[in-house]
């Protein structure tokens, strides 16, 4: 990172009134993107996928997580585990596509076999033809490398470095905020409730756009008639998440009055309340009385992201064919809104090539959730700053 970038990071960490946004390098420099993998993603709890993609025992799904080959595996015990998707022998990729692996994960190269809990089960011919024992091969120490993981609200999180705070502690503020929804069953809507958007932008711009309601009247004019700017409020939990809430959620997907079943036991707040939160680093969540969605932003490169959108409902009955038309309408509604955002996040990505752009000036009234996110990203580089300062001083 260049000295001027370091200086700009310090500006990001000022109060919103005097701060500037993250410097251009955070959006345009592949080297900074590489640094982010370690400092922003691997050191924190990061979402890599969805439990609904690995429901059956013995099913495995490979995940390319920022270039790191991982595999999500559902064990016979029903537990979902995440491993590095490589054989301990020669580093061969073990699972190359989502599939039922049945009893073991078997390397396609020399057929070393791992149980679904990662334990190395078989090392065929390792001691010569027909001899599966080599005194130098201690199977007990050669199981798959497990990555610390946790599943919450069907979201599969990993902490690659293994030293992030306990998941429960890390998520406590959001769990408290959404306590009325916690521990209630959710049901993925199926193929009509799942879609992807390939966006030519840095992942952070998608987060930033999601955080704030300031853009709604201009980018989503269709909302003006029933969800006006003044019907929204900011959500700020420094170091954790930020976003926006609405006080007028009242969907009318069907003229006949049909509506999805609500979560049980919600307070009045949620009759017309909805919240949209960016859970750092790369997860966008939306919660409503009758459905919940998650957008996993997959950072493909410094200037490319894939948004994986999955919509969940409150009751298994909502998955029936008789509800398909409403599920499709709901998914189409969200897809339209998310697609309206694409030209903005791609436009900001292009704009970040302007060398004179200083990261941007925040509105103290409207941009606090965005600044909270910028501040969090900058704070992940704090150790780098200290090191850089020392080197500069030297």
């Amino acid at each position, binding site marked *: 990172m260049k000295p001027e970038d370091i200086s700009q990071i310090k500006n990001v960490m000022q109060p919103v009134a005097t701060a500037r946004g993250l410097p251009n390098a955070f959006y345009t420099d592949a080297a900074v993107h590489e640094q982010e993998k370690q400092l922003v993603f691997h050191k924190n709890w990061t979402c890599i996928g969805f439990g609904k993609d690995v429901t059956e025992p*013995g099913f495995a799904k490979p995940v390319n997580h920022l270039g790191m080959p991982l595999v999500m595996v559902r064990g016979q015990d029903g537990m979902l585990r995440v491993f590095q998707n490589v054989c301990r022998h020669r580093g061969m990729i073990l699972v190359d596509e989502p599939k039922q692996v*049945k*009893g*073991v994960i*078997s390397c396609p190269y020399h*057929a070393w*076999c791992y149980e679904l809990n990662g334990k190395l*089960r*078989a090392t*065929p*011919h390792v*001691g010569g*033809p*027909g*001899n*599966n*024992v080599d005194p130098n091969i201690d*199977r007990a120490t050669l199981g798959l490398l497990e990555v610390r993981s946790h599943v919450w609200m069907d979201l599969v999180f990993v902490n690659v470095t293994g030293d992030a705070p306990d998941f429960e502690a890390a998520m406590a503020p959001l769990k408290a905020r959404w306590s009325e929804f916690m521990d209630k069953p959710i049901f993925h809507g199926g193929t009509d409730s799942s879609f992807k958007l390939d966006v030519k932008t840095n992942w952070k711009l998608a987060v930033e756009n999601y955080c704030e309601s300031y853009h709604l009247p201009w980018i989503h004019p269709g909302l003006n008639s029933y969800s006006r700017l003044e019907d929204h409020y900011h959500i700020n939990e420094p170091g954790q998440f930020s976003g926006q809430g609405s006080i007028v959620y009242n969907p009318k997907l069907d003229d006949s009055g049909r509506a999805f079943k609500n979560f049980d036991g919600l307070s009045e707040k949620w009759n017309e309340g909805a919240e949209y939160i960016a859970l750092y680093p790369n997860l966008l969540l939306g919660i409503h009385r009758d459905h919940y969605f998650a957008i996993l932003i997959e950072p493909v490169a410094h200037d490319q992201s894939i948004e994986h959108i999955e919509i969940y409902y409150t009751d298994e009955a909502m998955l029936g064919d008789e509800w398909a038309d409403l599920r499709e309408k709901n998914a189409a509604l969200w897809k339209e809104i998310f697609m309206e955002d694409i030209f903005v996040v791609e436009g900001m990505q292009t704009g970040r090539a302007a060398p004179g752009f200083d990261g941007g000036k925040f509105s103290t009234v409207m941009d606090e959730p965005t600044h909270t996110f910028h501040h969090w990203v900058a704070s992940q580089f704090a150790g780098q700053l200290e090191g850089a300062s020392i080197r500069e001083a030297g």
Partner: protein
Amino acid sequence: MMDTADLTQPLTPHQADRLDADILAWHETNSAAELAYGYRTGGQDAVLRGDIDAACFLFTQAYVFALRADLLDIADSLWLNLKSFGREA
């Protein structure tokens, strides 16, 4: 597919050729269960012919394919076989 019961006498040359051909075909189609049974038969044949090294090679092949096919009883039985010959830990 070959009879999966335990062999009581060695395969005839014709049966052995047929087994080789079947095994090649099952490799082509990734038919793990068939391969487990086929290699196990080959191993049993090698035991009856007194070629323990060949038997253990074939039992090992059968063991891996039994694991891949989730034929756990077969896999456990093959593992015991291999262990009895000092080829498994």
